[in-house]
């Protein structure tokens, strides 16, 4: 990026445009902001809250499962807890987390733009998301629901718990997701700076592009499905009610037509972050840029055609199941292409070990084992054994939750100096990262064994011989929680007392490190001209971090 003039100047020369945080003050300058960076921080605040809430629900579940039955809560509370854990984590944390925070903040900067194409729509997306969270919280306070986050009919249309506000929350959240997707696609198409041709697009942007396509084309289907479900609950229209000729399996098809691609809405941005982190910490050009970029679209496209693997045991024909199984395995191939290129990039590299890269290693472990168990689950005969057991729970927590949490935290540490202009302390951050990774792996590894031995998911009680595996899982869940607490405290301390960050504390080659930390309100003094590839390593030295 030809920003020589900016690089040579001191960070905040007299009379220069102030940074985006100090540029304006007052509550209204935040709640009505149109600046993509401030909107990103609004998202960050809200997703941190929902992540905490979802985590508390999870810990409540794990605490209950310490004993075979009748622990700290009754069965009905337990059912509500796992529903609220799923709803909060999927709809309110994982779907908006990486695109909402880091996508909003870095998409315009990485393509050399001053903002997204539609800043007001961007703010509207945030408020739709916030409205969804509030609706969800309102529903939870009024008793919550016990349907599971999948809202399967006919149970969800007949349950007496407070299912309507939760359905409405997921519906509203969908619109937030769609509008963000539209905004990002248009921004990538129309606001790339001169010289930023498609094969110079950072891989995080490619990932966001793939994600946005899925958001725009899949989310409306869940919207209408949840609306049908709500109307049926409210008016008894019978669309999914077998007593009136309706078919609950139709709900499953429509639900998974969105919710399987939604896995890629969550995980593709995480893959994008991983590419950025590998590009920054291996200190040599990334291997296989083109393959990583294109495999994103392989995943996004085939992801639309794999939903049937959730219905192997719902009376699907053997031919259908075979086709869906094959297509599901194909996604493993595209993911493997990425994985091999990342590992290839690390080969003979002088890797810098810092907290963001530790999260990347955790991400690799979880993605490889989560991904391979996914291929195993796509094998029909094996799935019949594992369907609805803890094996599936462990699998999707590894690949989906694990990948997203690792890369959310990795991205948070990596871009923290750019976003806030402060350096965090590396020591506690690394300890936090190790605790989070160990905690995560330790929580879900016993669940693979539990599932394989036949422990069904969502059960309140279990045979006594499963207890030691459940106890192990719970102990590690608490270690995970402690790790997350340490991360939170460390970053809050850095916000309050951190040293001023230089423009490029990691010596990373990517474009966003060329501008001041934190960026100015309009990112660049003038629209930049891009004259190099994003991962062209230029021999930058790491400027000594805080410790």
């Amino acid at each position, binding site marked *: 990026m030809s920003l020589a003039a900016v690089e040579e100047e001191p960070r905040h020369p007299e009379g220069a445009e102030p940074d985006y945080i100090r540029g304006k003050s007052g509550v209204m300058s935040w709640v009505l902001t149109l600046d993509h960076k401030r909107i990103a921080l609004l998202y960050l605040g809200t997703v941190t809250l929902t992540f905490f809430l979802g985590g508390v629900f999870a810990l409540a579940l794990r605490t209950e499962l310490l004993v075979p039955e009748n622990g700290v809560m009754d069965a009905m509370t337990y059912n509500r807890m796992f529903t609220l854990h799923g709803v909060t984590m999927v709809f309110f944390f994982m779907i908006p987390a990486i695109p909402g925070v880091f996508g909003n903040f870095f998409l315009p900067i990485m393509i050399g733009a001053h903002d997204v194409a539609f800043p007001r729509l961007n703010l509207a997306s945030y408020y739709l998301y916030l409205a969804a969270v509030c609706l969800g919280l309102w529903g939870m306070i009024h008793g919550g629901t016990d349907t599971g986050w999948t809202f399967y009919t006919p149970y969800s249309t007949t349950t007496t718990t407070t299912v309507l506000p939760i359905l409405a929350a997921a519906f509203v959240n969908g619109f937030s997701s769609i509008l963000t997707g539209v905004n990002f696609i248009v921004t990538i*198409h129309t606001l790339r700076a001169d010289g930023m041709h498609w094969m110079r697009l950072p891989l995080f942007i490619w990932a966001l592009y793939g994600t946005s396509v899925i958001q*725009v084309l899949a989310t409306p289907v869940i919207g209408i499905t949840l609306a049908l479900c709500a109307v049926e609950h409210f008016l008894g229209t019978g*669309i999914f009610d077998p007593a009136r*000729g309706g078919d609950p399996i*139709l709900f499953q098809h429509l639900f998974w037509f969105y919710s399987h691609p939604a896995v890629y809405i969550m995980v593709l941005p995480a893959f994008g972050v991983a590419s950025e982190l590998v590009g920054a910490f291996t200190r040599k050009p990334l291997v296989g840029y083109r393959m990583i970029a294109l495999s994103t679209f392989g995943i996004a496209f085939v992801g639309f055609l794999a939903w049937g693997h959730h219905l192997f045991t719902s009376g699907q024909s053997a031919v259908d199941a075979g086709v869906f199984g094959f297509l599901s395995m194909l996604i493993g191939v595209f993911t493997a292409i990425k994985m091999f290129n990342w590992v290839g990039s690390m080969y003979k590299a002088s890797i810098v070990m810092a907290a963001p890269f530790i999260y990347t290693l955790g991400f690799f472990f979880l993605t490889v084992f989560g991904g391979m168990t996914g291929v195993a689950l796509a094998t029909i005969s094996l799935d019949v054994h594992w369907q609805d057991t803890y094996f599936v729970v462990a699998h999707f927590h590894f690949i989906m939750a694990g990948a997203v949490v690792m890369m959310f935290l990795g991205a948070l540490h990596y871009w923290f100096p750019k976003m806030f202009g402060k350096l965090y302390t590396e020591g506690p951050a690394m300890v936090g990262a190790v605790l989070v990774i160990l905690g995560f792996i330790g929580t879900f590894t016993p669940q693979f064994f539990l599932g394989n031995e036949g422990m069904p998911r969502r059960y309140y009680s279990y045979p006594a011989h499963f207890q030691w595996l459940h106890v192990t899982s719970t102990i590690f869940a608490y270690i995970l929680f402690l790790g997350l607490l340490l991360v939170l405290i460390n970053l809050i301390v850095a916000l309050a007392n951190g040293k001023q960050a230089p423009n490029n504390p990691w010596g990373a080659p990517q474009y966003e490190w060329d501008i001041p930390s934190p960026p100015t309100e309009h990112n660049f003094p003038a629209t930049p001209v891009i004259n190099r590839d994003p991962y062209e390593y230029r021999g930058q030295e790491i400027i000594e971090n805080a410790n």
Partner: protein
Amino acid sequence: MQTDATIDHGHAEKPPHLRFQFSDSARQFHAAKFGMWLFLGQEVMFFSALLCAYAYYRNQFPVAWSMASHRINTTFGLLETIDLLFSSFTVALAIHFVRLGRRGITTLLLFVTLCCGLIFLCMHSYEYYTEWHEGLLPGRFFHPEAEWHLPMESAMFFSCYFFTTVLHSIHVIIGVGVLGVIMIFNIRGKYSPAYYTHVEVGGLYWHLVDLIWIFLFPLYYLVA
């Protein structure tokens, strides 16, 4: 509008409608149109889930479906179709004339489009009113005249019919609102041959609303 008219990014002669993040008007116009096309893509997916339910249940209950379809008012459906097709034509003309800078006739054409939308809503409300009285309602509210010999599965037809057409009518209401605002902006002189993005984008949305009806009309009114 953005509040950053004072920031100059090196473009001495910036037109007032050009937002700071765009380098020129043509690109800004393209972005708005592209954004609307993407939004229309999501609208298509929105309705396609309902068409999927339609296809499945029609295949399950072909006889009940055909008999139920006999009971809804084809004449009204046809008139509504003509009404919406005509409104698509007038909104297209409005875009044509705003490009030429003919403000008066643009306002008139937008007004006619808006009226067509309102006529559609009135006609459809009347249809709902008669169906309500005849007991042709979804799910558990289905209680038709015994002499029609409608099988119980016909209730599913009315579930799909009501859900889909009500959703479409909500789109018509939104479209009327959007076109109304654009008409007021046009009266106030916001648009010129150099800047008429709202008219173009609003028109695109209106075409989609009509297009969906073009699918719904044969699927619900003519299958009998």
